[in-house]
C-alpha cells in the first residue's frame, strides 16, 4: 500500500517537473531576450528603435542607426497578406472536408495536407525564387517577383495545413443536434453550413487562423529567400521587403558580440517574441471560449 503511494507520488512529481520545464524554458527565453536587448537602449531610445525606419548598423560613412519600423511594417505586410490568402482557402477547404467530401476523399486529402505541413521552409523558399517570383513578375508586368506578395503567397501555403486541420476539427466538434435542428427547420445544407456550423465553430476557427498567423510571423528562411530583402519602408505589396526574422538571420551570424548592433538584434527578437506571445494568447482564449460554447 505505502509502496504504491510512494510510486504515485514519484510519478506525479516527475510529470510535474516535466510540465514545469516548459514554463521555465519560456521564462528563461524571455529573461534572456530582455537582458540581452536592454543594453541597446542605452544608446538608442525605445521610440527611435520602434518608430524610426532607418536601419543601418554597419554604416561606415554615416553614423549607425537602429530603427526597426520598416521591418515591423514588412512583417505585418507579409503576414496579413498571407492570412488574406490562407483564411478563405483554409476555411473553404475545412468546410469541404467536414461537410461535403465523402469518406474516401477525406482519407486521401487529410494526409496530403499533413505532408504539406512537413515540407521544409527552405524548399518553399526555393519555389518562391524559381516559380512564384517569375509568375508574379509576368502577371503584374514588373521586372522581378522578389517582393512582399511572393512572401505572402508562400507563407499562406505554409499556414494552410494548420488552418485547415484545426478549422476542420472545430467544425466536426459542432454538436450534431445543431445541424439536425437546422435541417429540420427546412434549411438547405449550404445554409446550415454557413449560418449554423461556421458561426458555432467560429472561435475554434479564429484560434486556427491566429496559430497560422503565428507561424507566418515567425517564419524565416522562406521570407529571407523570396521577399528580396530590401530595408526600405514598404509602400506596396509589389516592393521588396525585409522582415524582422530575415534581419536577425542575416546579421546575427557576423555581428561582433556585445556591441549595440548585437543587442539591437536581440531587441528585434524580443519584439517578435512579444508579438507571437500575444497572438498565441489570443488564439488560446478564443479556443477556450469555443470549448465553453460547445459544452
Amino acid at each position, binding site marked *: 500500500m505505502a509502496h504504491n503511494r510512494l510510486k504515485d507520488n514519484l510519478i506525479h512529481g516527475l510529470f510535474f517537473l516535466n510540465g514545469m520545464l516548459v514554463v521555465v524554458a519560456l521564462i528563461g527565453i524571455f529573461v534572456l531576450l530582455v537582458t540581452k536587448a536592454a543594453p541597446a537602449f542605452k544608446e538608442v531610445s525605445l521610440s527611435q528603435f520602434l518608430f524610426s525606419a532607418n536601419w*543601418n*548598423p*554597419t*554604416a*561606415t*560613412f*554615416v553614423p549607425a542607426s537602429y530603427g526597426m519600423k*520598416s521591418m515591423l511594417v514588412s512583417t505585418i505586410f507579409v503576414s496579413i497578406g498571407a492570412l488574406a490568402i490562407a483564411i478563405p482557402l483554409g476555411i473553404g477547404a475545412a468546410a469541404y472536408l467536414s461537410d461535403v467530401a465523402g469518406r474516401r476523399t477525406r482519407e486521401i486529402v487529410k494526409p496530403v495536407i499533413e505532408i504539406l505541413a512537413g515540407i521544409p521552409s527552405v524548399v518553399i523558399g526555393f519555389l518562391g*525564387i524559381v516559380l512564384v*517570383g*517569375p509568375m508574379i*513578375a509576368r502577371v503584374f508586368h514588373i*521586372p*522581378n517577383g*522578389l517582393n512582399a506578395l511572393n512572401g505572402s503567397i508562400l507563407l499562406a501555403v505554409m499556414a494552410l495545413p494548420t488552418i485547415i486541420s484545426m478549422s476542420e476539427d472545430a467544425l466536426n466538434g459542432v454538436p450534431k443536434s445543431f445541424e439536425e435542428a437546422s435541417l429540420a427547420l427546412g434549411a438547405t445544407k449550404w445554409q446550415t453550413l454557413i449560418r449554423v456550423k461556421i458561426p458555432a465553430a467560429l472561435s475554434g476557427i479564429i484560434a486556427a487562423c491566429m496559430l497560422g498567423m503565428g507561424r507566418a510571423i515567425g517564419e524565416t528562411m522562406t521570407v*529571407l*529567400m523570396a521577399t*528580396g*530583402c*530590401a*530595408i*526600405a*519602408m514598404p509602400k506596396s505589396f509589389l516592393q*521588396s521587403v*525585409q522582415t524582422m526574422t530575415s534581419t536577425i538571420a*542575416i*546579421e546575427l*551570424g*557576423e*555581428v*561582433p558580440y556585445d556591441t549595440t548592433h548585437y543587442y539591437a538584434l536581440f531587441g528585434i527578437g524580443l519584439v517578435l517574441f512579444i508579438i507571437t506571445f500575444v497572438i498565441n494568447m489570443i488564439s488560446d482564449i478564443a479556443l477556450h471560449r469555443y470549448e465553453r460554447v460547445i459544452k
Partner: protein
Amino acid sequence: MKRSIVVFLAASLVLFGAGLSWSEDMVQVKGSDTLINVVQKLAEVYMEKNPGASVSVTGGGSGTGIAGLINRKCDVANSSRQIKSSEVEQANNKGLDPKRVVVAIDALSIIVSSDNPVDKLTVDQIGKIYRGEVKNWSEVGGEDMAISLYGRQSNSGTYDFMKENVMFGEYSTSLKSMNGNAQIAESLKQDRSGIGYIGVGYAKEATGIKILKVAATGSTKYYGPLDSMDVKSGRYPITRPLNQYIDGMPKGAVKNFLVFELSSEGQAIVEKEGFFSVPDEYQNYNAQTLGTTGDIRDNSMMRPTDLDTNDGAG
C-alpha cells in the same frame, strides 16, 4: 545480450578514438561565398593527392568566416575583404593572432541582364547607382527603365568592399540583399532592369547575363574583368585580393593545405575556376606569413604597397 553491449561499447570507443585522431588533421575552412567554389575545388584535389588529409569548406560570408576564426570554430577564414581593426582587436582579446594569406585575385564583375543595352559604366556611375542617386537606366545611357539594385547581405565581404572602394558611401535602402553570387546571377538573368556585382569566377560561368566594361574615370578607357593582363596590371579598376586568415604561423595540416593552394598547381586551379593567380608581390608576402622564407611579419594589416591594385584596405 551482455556481450553484444560490450562489443558495441568497444566499437564506439574505437570509432570515437579514430574520430578524435582524424579531427586533428581535419582542416575547417569557413567564410566568403566568393571563395567557396574555388577553395572547395582546391580541397578536393588536395585530398585526392593526400589520402588521409581532410579539408571541409563551408560558406556563410566573409564576416561569418572571420567571426568563426575568432570564436575558434574554424582553422581558416575565407574573406573577400581585409580583416577590420575591430576584428583584430577582438581576436587579440581572445589570444589569437590573425595572419593573412592571399590565395587569389578577383576582378569584381558588374553584371546586368543580357537584354540590357548598356555595356559600360564608370566607377563613379556605379557608385551613384548603388547609393541611389541614379535611379533610371536612361541617366547612364540606357533605356527609360527604373534600376533594380541587387547586392549582397551585410555579412558579405563583397558588400563591404563595394561600399568602401567603389561607392564611397552608404547603399540605397532599396538594395535587394541576396544570399550569394549565384543568386545575384540567377536574379539578373530574369530581371532586365537589374544590376549586380559578383566575383569574376561566377561571372564567367553564368549565362543570360552581360559583364560590363568599367572605366576608372570618365576620361579613361573601359576595360573588362576577363582579361588576365587588364586585371593584373590594374587597368580593370575593381580588383581585389581574396584572402584567407589563420591564427598565427600555421602548422601541420593547415600549413600543408595553404602551401598546396599557393603552389603552381594550386594556382592553376585558381585560374581554371575563373579567378586570377596571385602575383609575386603577394606570394612573397604569403611566404613570410607561412614562414617558408624570411621573417614573420608583425603586422597582419600590412600589405604590399608596390602592387597597383585596390586591396580593400579602404
